[in-house]
């Protein structure tokens, strides 16, 4: 599903991640790692939000850099700590991303109901609690028809009901053929998911855990 070759990411000349070759099969993959190990850097690189050296290819045909538009149409990202312009509303953000990702008609509404965010749709995000912000960010991450969804710490700041909603959505979409890369320090809900593999970010690379 996702092939990574000669991947290297450095900040100010300091190498953070160096992955010679790595393949993710279709399914749900759990990326673990200590704070500062480079998980978010890895996720943002795969999402096409950070430049990197090397190659990231989806489904054998969509290169992150060479087929930038079709690749991004198929890869979605949910930030660990989302930040949006404080004056925009969830409605404005969702409409913006839904249009860009060519979300099917009615999908945004369905996700708004699923995450129960309709009550604050027209309120500026600057007034949101961290949980409300996270739910908005998750709605954005599920918009469109992605083949791969990257969820960086999807459960932090969420209430129990929302946590179960996320797990249920992941299970449903995974059954429909969507792959996931998840990073989480919490394993209570993710353990219920059909995790295909678990990876550890350490020593500037990704290694499968035993």
């Amino acid at each position, binding site marked *: 599903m996702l092939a990574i070759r000669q991947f290297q990411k450095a*900040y*100010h000349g300091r190498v*953070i991640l160096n992955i010679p070759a790595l393949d993710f099969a279709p399914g749900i993959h759990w990326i673990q790692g200590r*704070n*500062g*190990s*480079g*998980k*978010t*850097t890895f996720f943002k690189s795969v*999402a*096409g*939000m*950070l*430049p990197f050296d090397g190659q990231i290819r989806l489904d054998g045909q969509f290169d992150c*850099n060479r087929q*930038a*538009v*079709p*690749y*991004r*149409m198929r*890869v*979605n*990202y949910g*930030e*660990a700590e989302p*930040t*949006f*312009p*404080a*004056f*925009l*509303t969830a*409605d*404005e953000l969702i*409409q*913006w*991303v839904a249009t*860009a*990702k*060519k979300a099917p008609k009615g999908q945004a509404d369905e996700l708004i109901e699923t995450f129960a965010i309709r009550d604050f749709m*027209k*309120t*500026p995000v600057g*007034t949101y609690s961290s949980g409300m912000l996270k739910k908005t960010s998750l709605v*954005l991450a599920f918009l469109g028809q992605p083949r791969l969804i990257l969820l960086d710490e999807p459960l932090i700041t969420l209430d129990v009901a929302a946590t179960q909603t996320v797990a249920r959505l992941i299970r449903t979409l995974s059954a429909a053929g969507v792959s996931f890369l998840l990073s989480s320090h919490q394993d209570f809900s993710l353990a219920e998911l059909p995790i295909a593999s678990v990876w550890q970010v350490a020593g500037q690379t990704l290694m499968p855990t035993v």
Partner: protein
Amino acid sequence: MNALPTVLRKTIVEQFYRQNAGLFFVVLMLAGSFLRAQEHIALAEAAVHAPFMLGLYQVLWLTYTLFATRFAVGVIRQTEVLYYFRLVPTPRRWLGLLVVQFVLLDPILLYTAFVGWISVEQHTGPSTIQLIAGAVLMLVLPVFWLDYALKTPNRQSLTANVGAAWRERFTTPYPLFFIRYLLSDQPVLFFLTKAGSVLLMLGILNLYPTDDYDVRLLALGLLFVAVSHSSMMYHLYQFEHERLALLRNLPVPVSRRLGTYALIIALLLLPETILLVRYQPDDLSMGVIASVWAFGHSLILLLFTLLFVRHRQPDQMLPVVFGLLLVGFLTIMYQLPLWALSVLGWVMATGIFTRYYPRSTWETASPD
């Protein structure tokens, strides 16, 4: 509590001067090139003898004070850790805030001192008192505002109801995100830049018919307009990095991204465009006026795309802005056709953006 001055300096003072380096550069350039030292002295001598004129000086300084203080208030509202300073005993907290205000106001306090020195030399006592009183008020009154900001996190805005009604009816399209950001988060920068730019254009368009000027005068005006927008362009670059990081994950072709930035710049230039059309000189056709506009637009777009070549702090952009000013000035003086210069600017901006945007990053980021 040694942390107080250090944290306030790093979060407010250093950020203020860094983020507004472009604006200071333009002001210094205008004040140092259009007005020579003798003219500053002559104007100050006239002002200390005319309370109204001195008042105009003070209105200008008051505008700067509002600009600087609003920036500091904005930092306090966005930096939750600063709310801990409420716990610092009031005299120490006030002293810390007073020092912040003093350093933020250094540029105008220095100029006040210069005018005050002229006033003392001219033996104009009332003007000296007016200057001292103004400086003290501009120094002390904003401290109440800063302290209020520290004490009132998540304050309910007075315009909240109006905003709610607006949000119910309208949705902001992406090209207007940045303009809304300027209006809500950087209103003083926005209005100062636009006011300065509009006044400059008005002055030039009124000056044009008074002598044997040609289109180069208008082109020079647009060159200065473009340079005065450098700070705003940096804010656009920073805004999209800090608040719209998801933008890079969206499936939008590079060409459309650049087109949207060109549209945003055209929207920002709307007041100048209206002035050019409204006060179109009789001897210049609309085509020539359009070439003047295109020249300014292409310069701003080029300035913006240069931000993606390598991540720089605002103060590190000064040589780039100065270089563009110099090259623009020379090309105007050598009477190179404005349409050709505009097309060249757009082509260069397109080349730079296409090549560097996908590889660009805000390099101060640290790994997680």
